[in-house]
């Protein structure tokens, strides 16, 4: 549904996007994750035709977005960062105007506006001026305006930016509903946002794609080099035993209830040390009730990927 390859964009001497490329099949919900200034918004702006790439190709729903920009813009709905709208207009007036600009046929305008308002739960504020609405509602109005031409692709740039926790929860649920029958690309720098909404994550840093996969895949790829055990005994003894058996490892212990300890072992390599740790604890007659490899969270993956990229750049 979305295919971009080798995108490049310079702003003066700044090389903001350096060969970004990925493909998103129909129906997938993908999160574009990256720190501020990573090139996420620039990538989305190129995707939506607001700015042109100086190199590379973009296809949306089979249409070449660089050769046929107007045609390609019919294929997606876009929610820009900060959800801009016209504060002096009423919600229904704004949606009517946007439906005309988006080329919705006159005959189906009313029904499309009603559908978008229902999807974004805007019925109660239809006649109110946008400038009088809360930020959460303004976000919904902007989102509704992106749905008017019933696009199969939705591109959302920081859709929860500036919302309070309740509004974030509502926005997330709304995006989840909208993703049922659409391809969605969501950009954000908020990790839980992406983790909860998206089935695939693309991490961007310094204008490049640094990692791409499902959250589970990324976590698995970045897992290893440690394990967590729950043992009975004395924390200091467990720690000493493991440190003697595995020189160069880092062992930390945390007391749990009923004389149990949570022991975390971190090795210097990426291998899974569970088997050796289990054997060592067993031979030292230390009782174990749980033993599992350390699994990285998306946050760990994010930090690790960015650190590796920064290291490589240096």
């Amino acid at each position, binding site marked *: 549904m979305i295919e971009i390859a080798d995108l490049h964009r310079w702003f003066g001497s700044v090389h903001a996007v350096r060969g970004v490329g990925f493909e998103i099949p129909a129906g997938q919900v993908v999160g574009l994750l990256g720190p501020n200034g990573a090139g996420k918004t620039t990538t989305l702006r190129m995707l939506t035709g607001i700015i*042109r790439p100086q190199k590379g190709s973009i296809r949306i729903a089979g249409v070449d977005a660089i050769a046929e920009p107007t045609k390609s813009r019919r294929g997606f709905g876009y929610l820009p960062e900060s959800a801009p709208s016209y504060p*002096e207009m009423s919600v229904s007036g704004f949606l009517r*105007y*946007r439906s005309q600009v988006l080329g919705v046929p006159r005959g189906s305008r009313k029904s499309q506006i009603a559908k978008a308002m229902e999807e974004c739960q805007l019925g109660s504020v239809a006649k109110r001026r946008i400038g009088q609405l809360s930020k959460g509602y303004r976000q919904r109005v902007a989102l509704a305006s992106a749905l008017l031409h019933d696009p199969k692709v939705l591109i959302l740039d920081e859709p929860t930016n500036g919302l309070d926790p309740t509004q974030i929860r509502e926005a997330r649920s709304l995006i989840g509903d909208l993703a049922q029958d659409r391809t969605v690309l969501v950009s954000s720098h908020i990790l839980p946002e992406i983790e909860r909404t998206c089935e695939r994550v693309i991490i961007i840093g310094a204008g490049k794609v640094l990692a791409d996969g499902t959250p589970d895949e990324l976590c698995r790829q970045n897992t290893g080099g440690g394990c967590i055990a729950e043992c009975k005994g004395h924390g200091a003894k467990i720690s000493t035993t493991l440190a003697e058996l595995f020189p160069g490892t880092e062992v930390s212990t945390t007391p749990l209830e009923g004389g149990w300890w949570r022991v975390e072992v971190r090795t210097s390599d990426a291998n899974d040390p569970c088997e050796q740790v289990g054997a060592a604890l067993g031979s030292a007659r230390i009782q174990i009730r749980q033993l599992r490899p350390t699994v990285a969270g998306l946050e760990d993956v994010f930090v690790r990927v960015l650190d590796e990229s920064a290291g490589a750049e240096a």
Partner: protein
Amino acid sequence: MSTALAIAKREFGSLFRVPVGWIVIALFLFLTGAVFVTSALLPGDPATLRSVFGTTTFMLVLVAPAVSMRLFSEELRTGTYELLASSPVSSFQIVAGKFLGALAFLVVMLLPTLIHALVLRMASSPAPDPGPILAGYLSLLLFGCLCLSLGTVASALTDSQTLAFLGTLLTLVCWVLITNTAPKFVSPELGAKLAAASYLIRIDDFARGAIDTRHIVFFLSISAGLLVAAGAALEHKRWR
């Protein structure tokens, strides 16, 4: 075209949803009314609106940049330009819509001044010649097109309304200095060439009741050229 009209309609409506639109119209009508009463309704003078058109032309130099300054600058400042730029419309459709919206505002602003012509007709004997009055309104419309298209270019180039206003105003003033004042200080050949580009000389011809096709072509072609430049400026933004 329907997309451009939708943009024009929104633009026209937005000028009435903010106080500045009403203030501009009120000031314009007050000043033109004052000029009409003090200069066109004098007993014994010929029944003509020439002085009113002269003042209105001068006021357009100030009013048109105030109307056009927000066309794109406001959208660029608030981020709504991204909505337009990511919609299935070309830069030239956007420019056409914006310009038509501003032009419609100018027409609505000029419409109430038709009452001056009616009052003059009722108060004068013999009745005023309708030719110069029609030509006068045509010149205001054509000059309005030129000012607004110039303002559209300025607004497409900056997100600062102040800069867009000053840029348009200064260009219109410099235009007069170059084509009306400078010819007096240069060689007759160069002076004639510069004067040929004067908008004031053409407006003066209209005020005398002469509707010259060359003058109409002059205003319309420059306006069209400026609108194409505004479209090109928007396209250029996609590459910067």
